[in-house]
């Protein structure tokens, strides 16, 4: 019962963030900058301030890029897209929430996340959560400092949580660091359904995870 309540809480947080990022835009590329403003058009000349705004401005299969070092906020992804932090974009997950959630209805579409620092700041539950989609590629990212709820069941405290409940899914995690996460550094753990997953983890550094006694990499 406690786990069910926790999942409802996570879904509520997800819904609040998703309400700000539910529409697909028209740009093939959109941009964020530390000097950006979300009322801008998210173009390279007039960048936005958050990934959520830049996501709203980009079309399916588009690219969101960070123009300079900055903190660009959490993101819910519901369409295929590439988010390129260029190695200097940070996302701090909201307390008891996630940094990035990928949930594309129908289990289609490819998502690429590259060059991002996703930080839990000792308050957020998960760094990158993959719920639905055809594929997820994570490269050159850092996921760190995510905490687990009390009596964790694997759905909190994860740097990267691959948890699809249906379909055929491919994930790739390369050149990535998972550090200081409370439950799993990287986890494949669907908690319901019957997904079929093929995954590649290569050139990953996973360390100092499992303060709660679980695993750095769980498959």
């Amino acid at each position, binding site marked *: 019962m406690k786990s069910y309540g926790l999942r409802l809480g996570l879904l509520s947080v997800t819904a609040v963030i998703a309400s700000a990022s539910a529409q697909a835009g028209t740009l093939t590329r959109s941009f964020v900058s530390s000097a950006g403003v979300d009322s801008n058009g998210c173009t390279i000349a007039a960048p936005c301030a958050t990934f959520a705004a830049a996501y709203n401005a980009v079309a399916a299969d588009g690219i969101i890029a960070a123009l300079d070092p900055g903190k660009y906020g959490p993101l819910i992804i519901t369409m295929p897209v590439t988010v390129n932090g260029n190695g200097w974009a940070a996302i701090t997950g909201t307390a008891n929430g996630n940094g990035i959630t990928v949930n594309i209805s129908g289990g289609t579409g490819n998502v690429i996340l590259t060059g991002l620092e996703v930080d839990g700041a000792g308050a957020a539950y998960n760094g990158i959560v993959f719920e639905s989609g055809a594929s997820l590629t994570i490269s050159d990212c850092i996921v760190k400092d995510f905490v687990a709820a009390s009596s964790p069941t694997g759905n909190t405290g994860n740097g990267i949580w691959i948890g699809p409940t249906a379909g055929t899914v491919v994930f790739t995690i390369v050149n990535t660091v998972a550090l200081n996460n409370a439950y799993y550094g990287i986890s494949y753990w669907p908690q319901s359904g019957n997904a079929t997953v093929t995954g590649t*983890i290569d050139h990953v550094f996973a360390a100092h995870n499992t303060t709660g006694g679980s695993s750095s*990499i769980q498959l």
Partner: protein
Amino acid sequence: LTGGSSAIVSVSNSVVSNSTTGNGIYSNGVGGTVTTTIDNDQISNNAYGVNVNTATVLLSRSVITQNSQYGINNSGGTVDTFQDNRSLANGHSNAVGGSGLTTTPVD
């Protein structure tokens, strides 16, 4: 896992370390099917280095050291080793825990 879920995952060229109260790599097929290929990894300073629970693991070219419990622990799964790993200075006098290993000739 849940009924019918399956995963085929490779972990290569990676470092998994300092999870001192847990597992370095945990391959858990309970409730589904999991096959994990572990190749050319360094797995050190965890409680369990490679912990297998009702899953299949293919293990090659990896260094498994200084894990305080078992370097390799196999609970009801299959661990195929290509006999080219370096496992040393793990707990329980470096023994393999549980069901042991299946050796696979190197091609």
